[in-house]
């Protein structure tokens, strides 16, 4: 039965099952876990991670990695916050556009070194992680952005609801994140330009022979990652308000974690952003739930996160290996039979 379901769908179903299991588990051990307030709190945090993770997914699909996203989030949050503090009258649309553009700019820097100069992305983004962060520290001079310096609509955005059902509030921020995920999914599965991301990651050498501009695709992957990190940076500013120079630290690991847990192959070429969304939600859920579990101190968060990612990679690899071997065996059997018939 399981052979008939495409691998991607199977993966998503498994993720949903794990998600449900985790929710059940925590609701059993934590008093009053299943309530609307929790959903409301978690949903905005997940929205931010999901957005960054989708950008990361574009990059990982092309067989690269973007470790600089955390610094981009911090930088954009800080710059935009600073701009708003200086000119509180700025129209919101302009602010958001700026956030995206600045993020895209950072992404373009990464894209330039990886796509144009052909440098390994892990090195480039490891370096830009430090460079962008240092740019932030230098221009901030150690001061931070605080909520009181921001116009009211900014933190207000994080609270604004698009809809409300019972106690469950569907925040605008979540709607935006969901829209991004859906747009990305449609782009990647139904647009030719989107399929090129898969092609590059699947076989970079073949791309050249097939007449695909690999460098351009990779460049845009990094620009997208930066742009989405920029947007996430704005949302981060909105939700948290207080931005210090270490803002955004840790998002690179979480986004890679979400991507890996969500079923995107670390070598690129295959994956699904719906899975990434669930992966991000899973990671963030575990993270914030652990805080509420008195049995376990909050200091277990990181350890659990690390082990979770490891478990996901192991499971993914073992599963896909077994699936591939099985399918190859079946294909071989069918192939011989078919050949016989034709001869």
């Amino acid at each position: 039965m399981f052979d008939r379901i495409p691998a991607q769908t199977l993966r998503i179903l498994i993720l949903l099952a794990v998600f449900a299991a985790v929710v059940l588990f925590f609701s059993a051990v934590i008093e009053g876990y299943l309530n609307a307030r929790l959903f409301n709190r978690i949903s905005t945090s997940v929205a931010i991670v999901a957005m960054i993770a989708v950008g990361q997914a574009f990059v990982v699909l092309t067989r690269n990695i973007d470790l600089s996203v955390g610094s981009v989030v911090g930088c954009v949050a800080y710059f935009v916050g600073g701009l708003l503090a200086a000119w509180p009258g700025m129209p919101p649309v302009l602010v958001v556009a700026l956030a995206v553009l600045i993020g895209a700019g950072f992404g373009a820097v990464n894209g330039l070194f990886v796509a144009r100069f052909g440098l390994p992305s892990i090195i480039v983004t490891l370096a830009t992680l430090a460079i962008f962060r240092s740019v932030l520290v230098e221009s901030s001079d150690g001061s931070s952005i605080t909520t009181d310096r921001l116009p009211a609509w900014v933190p207000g955005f994080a609270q604004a609801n698009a809809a409300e059902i019972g106690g469950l509030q569907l925040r605008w921020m979540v709607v935006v994140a969901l829209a991004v995920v859906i747009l990305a999914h449609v782009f990647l599965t139904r647009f030719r330009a989107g399929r090129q991301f898969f092609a590059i990651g699947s076989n970079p050498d073949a791309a050249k022979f097939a007449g695909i501009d690999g460098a351009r695709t990779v460049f845009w992957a990094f620009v997208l990652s930066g742009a989405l990190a920029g947007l996430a940076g704005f949302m981060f500013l909105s939700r948290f308000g207080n931005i210090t120079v270490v803002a955004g630290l840790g998002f690179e690991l979480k986004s890679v974690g979400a991507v890996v847990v969500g079923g995107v192959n670390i070598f690129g070429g295959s994956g699904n952003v719906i899975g990434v969304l669930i992966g991000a939600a899973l990671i963030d859920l575990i993270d914030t739930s652990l805080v509420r579990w008195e049995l376990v101190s909050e200091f277990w968060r990181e350890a659990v996160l690390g082990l979770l990612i490891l478990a996901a990679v192991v499971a993914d690899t073992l599963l896909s290996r077994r699936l591939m071997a099985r399918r190859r065996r079946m294909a071989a059997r069918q192939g011989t039979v078919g050949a016989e018939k034709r001869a």
Partner: protein
Amino acid sequence: MTEPVLEMRGVSKSFGATEALRDVSLRLFPGEIHALVGENGAGKSTLIKAMTGIHQPSAGAILIDGCEVQFRDTGAAQRAGVAAIYQEPMVFPDLSVAENIFISHRDRPRLIDWKAMNDEAEAIIARLGVAIDPRRQAGELTLAEQQSVEIARAISLKVRVLIMDEPSASLSDHEVQRLFGIARALRDEGVAVLYISHRLEEIFALSDRVSVMRDGRHISTRPTAETTQAGLIAEMVGRDMAGRFARMPGQARDEVTLRVTGLSREGAFRDVSFAVRAGEIVCLSGLVGARRTDVALALFGIAPADAGRIELAGQAVAIASPKDAMRLGIAYVSEDRRRMGLALGESIAANITLPALDRYTRAFGWIDRLRELADAADFRRKLNIKAASLTAPAGTLSGGNQQKVMLAKWLNMGPKVLIVDEPTRGIDIGAKAEVHALLRALAGQGVAILVISSDLPEVLSLADRVLVMREGRLAGEFPGETATDEAVMRVAVGAV
């Protein structure tokens, strides 16, 4: 008279000081299968790369339908209708077959209509006479199927010139025949097929005209019916090689070094039994797909057998890994030079001593470099390896010399059994003769040698005994002196 669809006029290509192509002129007409032969280094690959836009000629012109064109990249060549498929299929394993076929298309709508695409893919595949589900992931297909997908992609791009570079090298018997069928079907539809192969039998079976290249130059083009194997070889080599295949007296001793009984591996080979004596050269011949390499892999422990007996000097042994095999004195010189050959970044000397590294290791793991260099120099002399410095990276050597270093590497181990898989594939005739002489010398020293070769003349000149495999089983055996091309071929193809 018909106009050529693709013409290379006086094309030259240089890489720095190296001249890869010198004033090559070649014309391809629609509706013909045109074979291109030449030794390694003759310039065939460079010519193809110039035709497909990977390289730009340093001089000369490329004409499509009589008009001069410039291919700045592969996309431009594809748009003009020139496509190539290579020995290694260039497919995207994670994408579906249909996607693979249409991936290069520029003029398709931005939004993908999956159903239409799958239907179109199915139609194209049907024209090839194969049955592949367009929805399957390309990575799950066999090599031959992936090649078909590549050809389908070329067809979808309205290819007018299809270049096939050594396409049959890794295909089974069935698959090669099917490939021929596809080539003929394309020819009949008016496509110009340029077929490059080292296998002269294929050339004679398939092509209408054959061109010979040598040292970057175009030597001749003739209708295939007007050429002979000997004639072609003479032009490829530039000298008369009639005396090349002289036989030498055998040096087999009485004791049996390697005895294999009922060896089997599921899905690869069945019930293989043979023996090799000390000083004997046994050639394992057969067509590609006969699974000879699998037998070698079992003997060397890379893919161990699941049934049967292996005896060395009368003692039954178990070989579960290359280390086991090496410990028992079995060496395997693989045909897969890229994966199992040399570490190109490491020095020639280091490559030569790697399997026997323990011999050069002193206290605390210290390597005796002087001894290492001395032994490497020894091999350089014995094998006539053209290398200025033994500490230079192995990657700086030519293909033939790398092959010799590979041999040196395994000989240095002092093997009792030497298995060589396609020892002279892709190396020039001069080096071939040297390798043969070396193998005979080794036999003289008592080494049991198993040669896997698809080169019949080589087999006939070297072998004390010829074993023929077909589809995973031993199909026949001939004593070396009396074996003939015909007889071996008959067994290899299974003719009655």
